[in-house]
């Protein structure tokens, strides 16, 4: 008998359906994946099963848990959640109480569930030490916090665990470990899992059956291997294809002339607090030297907090190096003192397309902002530059009169690239240019970047933790750890034969390709 049965579930907000006519059945012990992009209704499905839908939602349809329809009264649903369903959320920092020791939080979950185990056993099961119980959430790393969340979800010996994007806030290495942990626990306990993610590869690595959702509709469902090797619907085919990056055509130009030279650059932050004198300053970037040739694509990879974004900000002129010097095309600078007439040569594209435009300005105004750096342009030339930039990134010039909220994430990232190009820079620094985008548009944005690069002979510095993207785009890769560059080389060589332990860990954490050979 199935553990969870969903029949014709429709959820709408103010008459607008967010999920329409979803029917699913989950067998006991099954690992079920729900894949979809933002707005597909995948999280709503999870909330509906746990009876946690927001008040504004109107739901019709039947959800049966273990043969019984979900109770309507709040207390009974809470008991069901406490005893039989465990949930793991996306952001472990906000899901844990910052003022409680994690051991106490696990104990609370045990008490509510009348669980038979003790805190130590649960911690051990999720791969933490008993000593971790005495710590507060901020004293744990992101991966450890997510393990604590999993321990809390396991407290009641649930029949069903729902994991909603449990790894998307974690870096690649930790992501792989948490996924492996979830798989191991499910195997050991014969627990049913609903795994919700936008990441096809993560779902493929973990789940035996998957459902693909799009804009509230079920597109396709079936055994994982079947859906992935023979996707029936065009949308699924696109999603599967998007996990495969087509490499940018590499042109070997031999020895390149250096465009940017970074010499012994360090960026240190004084640590505050009463005992600041005792603490050495934090070195975010530690004595880094390298060169970027003209028309080269250089990638900077490393775990979060390794200093790659700080380095990018120094190069772009938002932050200053505390030691060392940079040279762009012969002109020396240290960061924020980048000469005004050189600022137009370097552009920065930000990670989050939603924060990179002022919501109160039209796109024409936002895009024209960098043109202040080219003061001798006539108004007509300015307009032409804007139109050229927008059309270069494949958008329509009519969009210039509109406001940012009218555009999707992918379109905004194109517009951010257009803004970066409007001064006709020579060096583009791209900070995680696609990681905030839905999978299906990532490929488009990367294709665009590759096309612009060959068309205008641009030089890129790409910051990323996504090795597949880096392998497809970069001519040269540098691996950073704790402010230092620990390894560098061409992506093919580096990923085939990693030398440094961090590079090895990064390569090992890559999720397996899903397209069957």
């Amino acid at each position, binding site marked *: 008998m199935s553990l969870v049965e969903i029949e014709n579930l429709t959820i709408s907000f103010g008459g607008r359906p967010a999920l329409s006519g979803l029917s699913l059945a989950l067998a006991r012990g099954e690992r079920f994946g729900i894949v979809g992009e933002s707005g597909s209704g995948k*999280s709503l499905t999870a909330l509906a099963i746990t009876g946690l839908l927001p008040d504004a939602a109107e739901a019709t349809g039947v959800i049966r848990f273990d043969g019984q329809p979900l109770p309507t009264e709040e207390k009974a649903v809470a008991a069901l959640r406490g005893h039989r369903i465990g949930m793991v959320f996306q952001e472990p920092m906000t899901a844990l109480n910052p003022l409680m020791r994690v051991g106490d939080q696990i104990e609370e979950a045990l008490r509510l569930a009348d669980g038979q185990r003790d805190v130590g056993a649960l911690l051990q099961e999720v791969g933490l030490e008993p000593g971790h119980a005495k710590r507060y959430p901020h004293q744990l790393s992101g991966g450890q916090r997510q393990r604590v969340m999993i321990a809390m979800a396991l407290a009641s010996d649930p029949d069903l665990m729902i994991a909603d994007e449990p790894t998307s806030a974690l870096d690649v290495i930790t992501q792989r470990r948490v996924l492996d942990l979830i798989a191991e626990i499910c195997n050991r306990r014969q627990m049913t899992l609903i795994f919700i993610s936008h990441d096809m590869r993560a779902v493929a690595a973990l789940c035996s059956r998957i459902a693909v959702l799009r804009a509230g509709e079920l597109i396709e469902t079936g055994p994982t291997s079947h859906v992935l090797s023979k996707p029936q619907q065009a949308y699924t085919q696109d999603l599967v294809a998007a996990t495969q990056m087509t490499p940018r055509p590499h042109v070997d130009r031999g020895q390149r002339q250096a465009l940017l030279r970074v010499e012994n650059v360090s960026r240190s932050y004084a640590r505050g607090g009463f005992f600041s004198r005792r603490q050495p300053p934090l070195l975010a970037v530690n004595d880094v030297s390298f060169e970027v040739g003209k028309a080269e694509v250089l990638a900077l990879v490393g775990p979060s907090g390794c200093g790659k974004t700080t380095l990018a900000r120094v190069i*772009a002129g938002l932050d200053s190096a505390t030691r060392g010097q940079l040279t762009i095309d012969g002109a020396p600078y240290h960061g924020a003192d980048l000469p005004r007439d050189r600022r137009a040569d*370097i552009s920065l594209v930000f990670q989050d397309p939603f*924060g*990179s435009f002022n919501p109160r300005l039209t796109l024409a105004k936002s895009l024209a902002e960098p*043109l*202040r750096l080219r003061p001798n342009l006539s108004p007509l030339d300015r307009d032409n530059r804007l139109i050229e930039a927008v059309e270069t990134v494949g958008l329509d010039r009519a969009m210039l009169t509109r406001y940012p909220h009218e555009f999707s994430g992918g379109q905004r990232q194109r517009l951010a690239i257009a803004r970066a190009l409007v001064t006709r820079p020579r060096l583009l620094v791209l900070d995680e240019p696609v990681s905030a985008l839905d999978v299906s548009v990532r490929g488009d944005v990367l294709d665009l970047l590759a096309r612009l690069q060959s068309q205008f002979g641009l030089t890129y510095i790409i910051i990323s933790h996504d090795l597949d993207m880096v392998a497809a785009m970069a001519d040269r890769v540098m691996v950073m750890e704790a402010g230092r560059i620990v390894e560098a080389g061409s992506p093919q060589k580096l990923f085939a034969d990693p030398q440094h332990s961090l590079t090895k860990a990064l390569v090992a954490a890559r999720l397996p390709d899903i397209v069957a050979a």
Partner: protein
Amino acid sequence: MKTAWMRHPGLMIGLAASLAFALLGLLSLFWTPYPIADISIARRFAVPSPEHWLGADQLGRDMLSLIMSGTLTSFTVGASAIIIGAGIGVPLGLAAAIYGGPVEWLVLRFSDLAFAFPSIIIAILIATLMGPGAANAVIAIGIFNIPVFAQVARGGALTISTLDYVAAARLAGLSRPAIALRHLLPNIASLIIVQATIQLSIGILAEAGFSYIGLGTQPPQTSLGLMLKDAQNLFLIHPWLSIAPGLAIAVIVIALNIAGDGLRDVLDPRLRRQEVGRVAG
């Protein structure tokens, strides 16, 4: 947008009541049922009647006319104090947010200092120096408003200045004041409007207090606080004379507070995004 306004009946009620009182006050500029300086012993302590809707006070002045005129004084004083407070406080707060360092330290210490002085002490100080009057109440409340607006502007600006479009503007070579004007101010405007509504109600309450202790509006002009003061000796015999202006003050302050809360719900993008965020995915 329309639905957002409809979903907040409190906002509609609060705004409607505040506007009604403000219009009533404005109307007193051009017309009141009776001139407020019109003293008539014959009709003193008149009870509410068709001629005098709210009755007359101990000098035979028409209560409705007095309340209309007093409401105007309250709104004028409250609004002028906001103009002083926001006019000085918002630039200070923005400067603190964009320059940081010593500028921020100075602004913060200044606002600590201004917060530490209750506005009543400032009012007494000003009254001692320049004599009591409505203008002095404006200055005293205005000074009290400055640190409030400075802190709101600084807090809002700090949140926004971490966003990427501010970094993009810095890369585009905009000066800090230009960034504050172009990117920060428009995006904290809603915060400031909400705070202004709340400060207006506080200002009206403070004006009533100053007039009541004799530091604010002076006769022959009138204000709601002054009416309370004049009526207090007669409270046991003619309670209505105190209740009418007192009720007017209470209703105005409550209406403005409800309107402020409603405005925050509608305008604050963070609350709105949260609502959407919970639904998305």
